[in-house]
């Protein structure tokens, strides 16, 4: 009913002068354009963050390498971490949420379109500030440029004495500004989900992607804000002579760690929960079965949301907390594995007995399942306080969280690209290039991060700019670095695929995967108004109902 487009008086993109097209993108409040802006911003920063990772891996290629100075090395890992979390992972997930949440719930836009644009530009401005530090960070002191305090910026590294110049301030203000952007987007997603659903789209019928982004936005509201508060305190210390983190005046460096990780650990779940959402949409479509255990999936997600705010101090076992705190945080860390395990079980349950269709998107999902499971297992190892005393601060930790972020989050994001690119552009991504991308990236990923656990167990600390020969670390670092370059080539194949398919890809049509959620009921790319007539739904799979009027889902719900 809403599948045919109406002619609206907008001149075709091609006939517009580029200045006007650019102007339209800058002033847009359309959730789809803002979604694409978010994704484009994230891809841009992905390349920069990837370049920084490459510099780190070249430096660690062999013992006593002097590719970069220790100072530059510190800047590289700080900027790599900060960029990848705040300006790659979060914007890319917000981008997908922005684009698809309104489409999936049958709405014409987000609840607050102007707030949406404002939030995006705050994020973009935050990213610009972070990188402006390369130019302006030394201030009048001539003391180093980009931030070099690590992505968690522990006190007292950030105090005036140890961090002269303005580099730490750029880091602080950049995260403060982009944090406000994230809060704006979270408010928007939350209100959109509650207030903009089309008739019949009850909470119990929402696509899981929408549900999971709903939980994610709730978590953003409660977990990003502690970081903003801590950043305000840090600015107070640095500019007004405050003593929050000043141990000389009775302040505490530990409380910064608590404040940081109260944000930091839920942040991991803020990133992974939308990825669970990707899988919950993609796996059923390519298994040709509805999702297994929908209510359990929702329940497990909400459970993760709650438990995730009580696990933060497992990042701090090595600072020497008392045994009650250690036990509490070890137990909650074990407990959060349960709802996460339920989800993996649900996806396997969905695939079980299904008619599997191994598109590139599905391949990335299957990769996710295996890798996320392993990442979870090493997480359980690190959550065991005594073992963490041994492994904390070593390359084992680096390998573990990259397994989550690259093996889990990034794989799910790639799956989402191959699944939804046709909807966003009207063109299919090339499957051959896609499969090359998948296999290269899979091999590169495992070369780098499987092997990286070993030097960690052998005692290699993270953040060292070089190491002595003869400790048994050389070969593993060499393999890790080679793997990093295989991954880099895979990313280039991906970018190439994005560009080539945009111009040469085969036409997608409105529903290339024979899928079931509302975004596939409109043309690709969707018209500015999304739906000609606001749809009405009667089940969790509205398009199934429409395609199979003889046997609709609504009969069984």
């Amino acid at each position, binding site marked *: 009913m809403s599948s045919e487009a109406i002619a609206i008086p907008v001149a075709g993109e091609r006939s517009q002068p580029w200045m006007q097209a650019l102007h339209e993108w800058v002033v847009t409040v359309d959730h789809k354009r803002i979604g694409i802006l978010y994704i484009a911003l994230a891809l841009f920063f992905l390349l920069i963050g990837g370049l920084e990772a490459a510099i780190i891996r070249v430096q660690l290629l062999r013992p006593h390498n002097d590719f970069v100075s220790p100072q530059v090395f510190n800047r590289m890992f700080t900027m790599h971490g900060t960029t990848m979390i705040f300006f790659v992972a979060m914007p890319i997930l917000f981008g997908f949420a922005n684009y698809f949440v309104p489409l999936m719930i049958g709405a014409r836009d987000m*609840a*607050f379109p102007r*707030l949406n644009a404002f939030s995006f530009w705050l994020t973009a401005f935050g990213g610009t500030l972070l990188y402006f530090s390369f130019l302006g960070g030394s201030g009048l002191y001539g003391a180093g440029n980009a931030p070099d305090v690590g992505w968690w910026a522990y006190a007292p590294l950030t105090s005036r004495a140890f961090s002269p110049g303005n580099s730490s301030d750029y880091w602080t203000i950049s995260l403060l500004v982009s944090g406000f952007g994230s*809060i704006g987007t*979270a*408010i*928007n997603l*939350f*209100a*959109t989900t*509650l*207030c*903009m*659903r089309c*008739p*019949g789209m009850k909470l119990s019928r929402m696509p899981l992607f929408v549900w999971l982004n709903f939980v994610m*936005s*709730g978590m953003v*509201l*409660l*977990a*990003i*804000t*502690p970081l*903003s*508060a*801590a950043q*305000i*305190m840090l600015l*107070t*210390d640095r500019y*007004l*002579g*405050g*003593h*929050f983190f000043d141990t000389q*005046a*009775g*302040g*505490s460096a530990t*409380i910064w760690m608590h*404040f940081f990780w*109260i944000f930091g650990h839920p942040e991991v779940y803020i990133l992974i929960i939308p990825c669970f959402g990707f899988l919950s949409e993609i796996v059923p479509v390519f298994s040709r079965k509805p999702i297994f255990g929908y209510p359990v999936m929702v329940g497990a997600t909400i459970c993760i949301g709650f438990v995730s705010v009580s696990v933060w101090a497992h990042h701090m076992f090595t600072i020497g907390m008392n045994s009650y705190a250690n036990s509490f945080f070890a137990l909650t860390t074990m407990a959060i594995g349960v709802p996460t395990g339920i989800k993996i079980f649900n996806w396997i349950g969905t695939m079980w007995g299904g008619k599997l269709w191994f598109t590139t998107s599905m391949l990335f999902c299957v990769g996710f399942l295996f890798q996320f499971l392993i990442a979870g297992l090493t997480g359980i190892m690190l959550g065991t306080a005594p073992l963490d005393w041994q492994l904390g601060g070593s390359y084992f930790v680096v390998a573990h969280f990259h397994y989550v972020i690259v093996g889990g989050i990034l794989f799910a994001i790639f799956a989402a690209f191959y699944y939804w690119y046709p909807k966003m552009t009207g063109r299919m991504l090339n499957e051959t290039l896609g499969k090359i991308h998948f296999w290269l990236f899979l091999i590169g990923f495992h070369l780098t991060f499987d092997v990286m656990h070993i030097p960690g167990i052998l005692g290699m600390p993270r953040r060292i700019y070089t190491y002595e020969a003869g400790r048994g670390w050389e070969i593993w670092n060499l393999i890790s670095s080679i793997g990093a370059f295989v991954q880099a080539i895979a990313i280039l194949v991906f970018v190439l695929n994005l560009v080539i398919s945009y111009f040469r890809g085969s036409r997608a049509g409105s529903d290339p995967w024979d899928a079931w959620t509302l975004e596939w009921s409109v043309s690709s790319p969707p018209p500015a108004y999304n739906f000609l007539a606001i749809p*009405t739904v*009667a089940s969790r799979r509205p398009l199934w*109902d*429409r395609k199979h*009027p003889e046997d*609709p889902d*609504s009969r069984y719900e």
Partner: protein
Amino acid sequence: MNSVIAPMHATWVLPYRGKVGMACLIAAESAIFTIFVVAYLFYVGKSLSGPTPREVLEPPLFYSACLLSSSLTIHLAVKSLSRGNYPRFLLLWFFTIVLGGLFLFGTAREWHKLIAHGLKISTNLFGTTYYSLVGLHGFHVCAGLLMLAVALLLAFFGSIRREHAPKADVLAMYWHFVDAIWVVVFTVVYIVGR
């Protein structure tokens, strides 16, 4: 698709987005205040030098009463607006701003006195936590007053009508939040912290 659909449109009612959005903002702000309150409580009695809270702090009872009663006036103002009683709305809205302004004046006087006593944000941990927590709240009062003043100006020129009552109510939600937070800050700073 089937016959159940037609009446569904009529009965399909969702919450007002303004209220939900403001509730989300309040949740986020509460988390920020929680961190500042935790820091305040964590550092009670940990200052290495004076002055201490007991020496210099006096509970600002009158000004607190002003702020808390402004919650009542804004509530009644929105009620008058939804009934279409514009003069009463204008008057009550104006009173709300006056009461909020009085509270800010009280804070300014208190800070002036404290600075004269030698307590600045850089003096000791008490100064750092006190000025940042009370200042964060004061900042929210300022932001609220600014929004209330804009609404008053619009109302004065007759641009705020009865149908805008739900929007005025969203602003009132924020103002109630600012007041509720003051109850927490007051308890923490002037009762527990002393």
